[in-house]
């Protein structure tokens, strides 16, 4: 049986004006378990808290009820008071007789009657309270960043700056991501490489940062502060530590017909390659799908020309196991496939290209050395049509495109149009759009410059069909403002393809038990208040894996994610919320219902041996809650059919006791 003290606060006249506080403390004195009951003007004041502390000691109280303002206001205060007097802080319950009683009811009899009932409910609950102690778990002071694009790079740099070791896992042979493929960046038109490559070098040179390029995350176990990760370092058949990146092999390799993915297949590379000049790490990689030596055992040219002796045809995939305290997902995006957009003749004509291909065509390091030439005949195009929202905002066409807005296309198309007009004033540029969306600093100004200064023809309307005819592309479109059909003979058509999360994100989310939306973008812990955290504790989100983003947004989110990681890694121990779910293993069926409703992946199952009443033993599957991960929502407690799962601090018996007290 508890020894409960009841403390009724007047809150000046805030409570005492509508509630007969004396009557409340008298009435609650008669409740089971109550050994002391009093009232005072301001319980939260120093003097009020002293009354509580003294009573705890004098009456050997095991639990207290404070009838006062909302627990959202002073629960923490009174828990501290209790703790200071040696009482477990979770033995405190608050009856909210101000916000939910005296302030909303007019007359004293009504207010008093309700205050007594609320007090009884709190007493009934505290009778069933148990002291709770928050669990503690250590923190491994190392972070893992998955993805080496600008998001991952920025996050890693920021974490490393704070002094914590960071590993970047990048599945391509080099970090840099999509930004490395871009030419200029909006709205300032500075060159992407000029601002990205120094950061890549910083990463390479930072002692705190390790790069696992050409690597993938294989397995993730554990929980916040204590993740165990297996990383698969794919065989690149080149000894990274020895390769100097001189590039001799990439010039001598006889296999010249490998589509160059960095230029989106618009030119070729060799079977041994360095993706681009500023790659980090600047190490060659052999493409096993094309290497004659690896496929037939005959060739070995690269090995002969490599003075460093870095070529190793026998190299194997390697598994690296490492512990991390935090994981940042920065898996980025890709343009969607254009296969299903036959109306734009993407597969029929080389001169229908995507915007990312256009970036490469205008990039000095691209297939045309920066000269804008049509891919089909390398002629200078005189009429260019840009088509917006190809697969974006695609209502009722989920099988083709995406319902969401890809966000970046309006701005990069304005950039492309402007750059074309700037460099080649003889070129007519048309942009077909649904809406032009330019919310962002200096964005609208940028777009208006394209229209007003550069004379880009913006036409509201969608392109219906692109038909290759001779060396022209017949573009048939509608102009919604003029309300007429438009026909343009274009030399080049550029499609603003929708962007989607990288395909690797879905399996990764499963490994991380992080949730995703239907579009495979990672879900944030709270859309407004915790936008860079995943609901899974210790997993953070950076960049376009969470939703379409431009570079400034990505970099700011990357920094925010880093600061969250730093905050986590700065702790030696994690103190959990003690009000968490806990299963009664004797009653647990191991049915997985709880696991399926847990938003945090806090529940796992183990086979456990039980001694049965007839003295036999039995192995049974039972649920286990990771106290470091559980946030205490209680979804599992209702999903559990046997009632084995209960929530500490809000146990079923406690809530039922409150119900009973209110209804009696």
């Amino acid at each position, binding site marked *: 049986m508890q020894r409960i003290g009841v403390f009724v606060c007047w809150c000046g006249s805030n409570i005492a004006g509508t509630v007969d506080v004396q009557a409340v403390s008298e009435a609650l004195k*008669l409740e089971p378990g109550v050994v002391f009951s009093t009232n005072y003007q301001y319980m939260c004041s120093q003097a009020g808290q002293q009354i509580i502390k003294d009573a705890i000691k004098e009456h050997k109280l095991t639990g207290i009820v404070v009838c006062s303002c909302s627990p959202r206001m002073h629960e923490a205060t009174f828990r501290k008071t209790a703790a200071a007097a040696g009482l477990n802080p979770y033995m405190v319950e608050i009856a909210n007789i101000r916000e939910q009683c005296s302030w909303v009811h007019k007359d004293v009899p009504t207010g008093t009657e309700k205050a007594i009932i609320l007090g009884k409910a709190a007493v009934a609950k505290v009778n069933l309270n148990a002291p709770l102690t928050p669990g503690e778990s250590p923190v491994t002071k190392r972070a893992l960043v998955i993805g080496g694009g600008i998001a991952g790079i920025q996050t890693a740099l920021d974490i490393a700056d704070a002094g914590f070791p960071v590993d970047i896992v990048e599945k391509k042979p080099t970090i840099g991501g999509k930004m490395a493929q871009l030419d200029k960046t909006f709205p300032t038109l500075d060159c992407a490489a000029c601002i990205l490559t120094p950061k890549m070098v910083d990463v390479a040179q930072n002692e705190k940062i390790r790069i696992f390029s050409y690597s993938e995350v294989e397995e993730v176990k554990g929980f916040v502060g204590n993740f165990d990760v297996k990383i698969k370092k794919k065989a690149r058949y080149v000894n990274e530590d020895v390769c100097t990146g001189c590039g001799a092999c990439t010039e001598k390799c006889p296999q010249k017909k490998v589509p160059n993915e960095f230029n989106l297949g618009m030119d070729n590379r060799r079977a041994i390659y360095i993706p681009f000049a500023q790659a980090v790490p600047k190490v060659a990689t052999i493409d096993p799908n094309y290497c004659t030596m690896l496929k037939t055992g005959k060739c070995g040219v690269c090995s002969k020309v490599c003075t460093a002796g870095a070529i190793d045809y026998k190299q194997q995939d390697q598994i690296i196991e490492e512990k991390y305290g935090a994981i940042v997902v920065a898996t980025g995006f890709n343009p969607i496939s254009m296969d299903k957009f036959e109306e734009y003749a993407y597969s029929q004509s080389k001169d229908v290209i995507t915007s990312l291909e256009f970036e490469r065509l205008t990039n000095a390091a691209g297939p045309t050395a920066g000269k804008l030439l049509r891919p089909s005949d390398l002629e200078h195009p005189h009429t260019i049509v840009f088509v917006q929202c190809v697969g974006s905002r695609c209502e009722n066409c989920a099988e083709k495109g995406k319902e969401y807005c890809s966000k970046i296309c309006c701005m990069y198309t304005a950039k492309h149009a402007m750059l074309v007009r700037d460099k080649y004033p003889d070129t007519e540029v048309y942009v077909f759009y649904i809406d032009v969306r330019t919310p962002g600093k200096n964005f609208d100004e940028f777009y208006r410059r394209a229209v007003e200064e550069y004379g880009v023809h913006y036409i509201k309307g969608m392109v219906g069909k692109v038909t290759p005819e001779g060396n022209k592309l017949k573009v048939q479109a509608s102009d919604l403002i003029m309300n007429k059909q438009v026909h343009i003979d274009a030399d080049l058509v550029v499609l603003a393809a929708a962007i989607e999360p990288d395909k690797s994100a879905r399996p990764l989310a499963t490994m991380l038990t992080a949730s995703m939306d239907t579009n495979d973008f990672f879900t944030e812990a709270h859309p407004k208040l915790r936008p860079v955290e995943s609901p899974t504790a210790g997993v953070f989100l950076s960049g376009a894996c969470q939703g379409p983003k431009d570079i400034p947004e990505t970099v700011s989110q990357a920094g925010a994610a880093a600061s969250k990681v730093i905050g986590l890694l700065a702790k030696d121990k994690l103190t959990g919320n003690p009000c968490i779910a806990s299963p009664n293993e004797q009653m647990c069926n191991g049915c997985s219902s709880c696991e399926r409703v847990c938003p945090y992946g806090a529940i796992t199952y183990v086979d456990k041996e039980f001694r*049965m*009443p*007839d003295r036999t033993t039995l192995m049974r599957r039972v649920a286990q809650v990771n106290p470091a991960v559980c946030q205490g929502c209680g979804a599992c407690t209702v999903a559990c059919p046997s009632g084995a799962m209960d929530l500490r601090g809000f146990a079923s018996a406690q809530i039922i006791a409150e119900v*009973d007290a209110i209804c*009696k």
Partner: protein
Amino acid sequence: MRKCTAANLDKLFAAIAENAALYLPVDDEKGTAQYKKWAEGTVMSNALNTAKSPKDFFFPQSEDLMKFKTQGKTIELTDIRDEKEDFVVFGVRACDVRSFDILDRVFLVDPRDSYYASRREKGVIVSLACSKPTETCFCSAFGIDATNPAGDVTAWKTEEGFFFKANTEKGEKLMASLEGLTEECTEEAVEAQKAKTAAILEKLPLADLDTDKFGGGKTAELFNDPAWAELSRSCLGCGTCTFVCPTCQCYDIKDFNTGREVIRYRCWDSCMYSEFTRMAHGNNRNSQLERFRQRFMHKLVYYPENNEGIFGCVGCGRCLAKCPISMNIVKVMKTVGGKKDE
């Protein structure tokens, strides 16, 4: 012997109901017979028997025993027993009539159960002889004569109407109050029915059910019989057999806290339940085998051992009809003891 013509039957029921609550089997909307209180227009069921046994009248499924209220260190007790009015149960079959005798030997011996006793005192049993026994009937195995049931008054229903014979003082009193609606008659029609029914009883598939293996003193012989394992294996551990059984008498006493006071009540319990007689140390029968064995050993061995050889089963056949998996006392009797009925 007195006779009431079919035409006078409703008047007879009305006359009984004038002085006491009259309960009789009535078909519900699905044609299942259940005891219902008689009211003008109630039609008595023609079914062989009711789905639930009439033990409810004396030993209801749940009944409040008392109330108590604590305040500080004082406790206030109130006896809230349901003061039953005089009542007549009409149409009880021979098997069920025997069940009252079996229950009496539990509740009316020291310490006498006053709740049960007061109902027994206030209730008058009008039994009804069987004329169309069914395949699940095996009352004759326990020496019960379905054609001539006991009870305060015995009734026979023939095409001519109802025939009555009072057996006890209570019965005589009831019959006396009905004198105006009944007439003295010969036993001819009744005897004819008895003979006809007896012939059917002999042909029943379970007519030759053997009870010799069972009875007092057989504990050592039967307790460890290997057949229990197989018989109990499919038992679901539900309480259907117990709750439809006219002789099962186990109960639990529980408190219900209304928030203002505590109501102490008792309700039927089943030895088939895993929680039955759970104590601080746990349960004393941990497997369904043990629980299953207990139910049948009690009826066939322990009860007769303490009650002059009377079996705790009356052969009403309800459990045969209602067990979800069709396991029942007949199968047990034919299997346990090794002598399988071939």
